[in-house]
């Protein structure tokens, strides 16, 4: 009995610390300005207005940031999948020289402090003419998403019995055909999980985007939106509306394939 009480107490605690801030932000974005800064905060909105959204979309470059962020995040997701899936297959299913050493290098790259290469990448990309281009962000975001993605593919590869490949091989199918016809369809959940991870890391990336992008027209949400914070006299309604819109895409994606993603992270714990 005390166990149940403890359990539900814990659930309540986490529900409050995670859910409440988001509830306040989303409901705050539709309250009128006076209610937002009222002395006694309201739990449920007493007013309804879309003025913050209208102002955000009309008076700032927010729509541009949103489109840029989407372009970069989708490209990063595609590129990461194209690089991570074959690499993971080679790592965990094929005969590969120096496997151990290379795998360690990949794990090391996962926790690699980006700040250390921030300055030289800026110089290097300047030489290549990649400054102020969304391509630069796609390259950097893919780099930092790649190691974890390869690691995550491991658990998905583990769910596919080796016999399936063996059998196809016995029938004389060449490896590329086995991959395309048999493995890729079976690996779709893993591919989705990697795509989600790459999308999310790109969607939230700030530091490289703040340095590699110069013009307002190329900004992504994290940097562009951070600029809006300082631009005006702090207008909470505007910022809450912007925050709500920035949450929306990742929440939609997570609602669709969040379970697959969590399964990839927890080694098939959620099935």
């Amino acid at each position, binding site marked *: 009995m005390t166990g149940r009480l403890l359990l539900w107490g814990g659930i309540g605690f986490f529900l409050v610390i995670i859910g409440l801030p988001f509830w306040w932000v989303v409901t705050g974005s539709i309250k009128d300005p006076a209610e937002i800064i009222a002395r006694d905060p309201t739990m449920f909105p007493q007013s309804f207005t879309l003025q913050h959204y209208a102002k955000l979309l009309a008076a700032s470059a927010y729509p541009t940031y949103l489109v840029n962020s989407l372009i970069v995040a989708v490209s990063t997701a595609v590129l990461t999948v194209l690089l991570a899936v074959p690499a993971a297959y080679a790592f965990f299913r094929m005969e590969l020289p120096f496997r151990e050493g290379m795998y360690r*290098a990949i794990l090391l790259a996962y926790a690699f402090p980006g700040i250390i290469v921030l300055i030289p990448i800026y110089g290097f990309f300047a030489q290549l003419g990649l400054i102020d281009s969304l391509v630069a962000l796609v390259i950097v975001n893919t*780099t930092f998403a790649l190691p974890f993605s390869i690691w995550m593919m491991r658990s998905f590869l583990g769910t596919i019995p080796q016999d399936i490949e063996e059998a196809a091989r016995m029938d004389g199918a060449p490896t590329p055909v086995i991959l395309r016809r048999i493995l890729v369809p079976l690996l779709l959940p893993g591919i989705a999980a990697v795509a989600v991870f790459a999308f999310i890391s790109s969607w939230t990336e700030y530091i490289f985007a703040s340095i590699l992008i110069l013009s307002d027209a190329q900004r992504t949400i994290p940097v562009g939106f951070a600029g809006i914070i300082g631009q005006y006299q702090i207008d909470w309604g505007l*910022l809450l509306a912007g925050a709500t819109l920035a949450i929306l895409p990742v929440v939609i994606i997570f609602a669709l394939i969040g379970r697959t993603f969590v399964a990839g992270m927890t080694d098939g714990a959620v099935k």
Partner: protein
Amino acid sequence: MTSAPVPVRVARRLSERRLAILFVAPALLLLAVTLVWPLILALDLSVRDVRFIGQSGDFVGLANYADTLNSTRFWESAGRSLIWVVGNAVVQTALALAAALILHQRFPGVQIARVWILLTWIVPTVVVVIIWRWLLSNSGGMINPLLVQSGVINAPVGFFASRESAMTTLILINAWRWFPFVTLMILAALTRIPADLDEAARMDGAGRWKRFSRITWPLLQPTLAVLLVVGTLLSFNVFDIIWLITAGGPSAGTQTLPVLIYETAFRGYEMSQAAAMSVLTGLFLMVFAVMASRGMSREAGP
């Protein structure tokens, strides 16, 4: 079943090896170009006198390193980074362990909870920043009125007013953002613990606490050790939350090493100095990672 003749098998193995290398090559190439090559460039930059990118800069040897090692700013930032990393490790692990133990139970909605616990981790940092700047602010923020109403404090407090409270608040915010990720890693380890072990102990009449301390906790050790190393490196890296909330202030009270490097390079326009700081920071982290994994393998050994 007849197997292929030996020469064919060898040829197939060779071609498979070639295919395997072809498969990893693009990924490794990207990492080489965007991580390894810039590291080499950082070393080169650190022994010159480059103020802003584009300058070729004279060779100055180890002068930038000497300057860095002699500057109190660098060591103070290193100290703050240490506090930051330890604070985050403690708060995140505590929250994540509690959450993982809960999510490991059966209750209605557990599947949904396992997915949406990640909410704080999937939203952009700038959203996290707005949420907490607003909630903790003195104009319209919810936290101050709530604390005053419930009698915890008498008057609204400035969470970012003093160095200590700013650091503490930032650690709590960052832990709030990152603990769900750690939770899932611990949850993964929990599901790998055989359920019959726990069941057998229960049959023998072991209480909840005893089962946790004798079975769950020891079996979680390897995972927690790995998380300690990875988590330390990941939280060391955190820049945007600090930069966008306090920009390292008040009076440099939250200026960790990444913030110092960023400021030195892109506000102070001393690229070479910042590169030397980066290289030294990388060395510190490498020494830490090597020592920590040595310690782990020793503990895991006989």
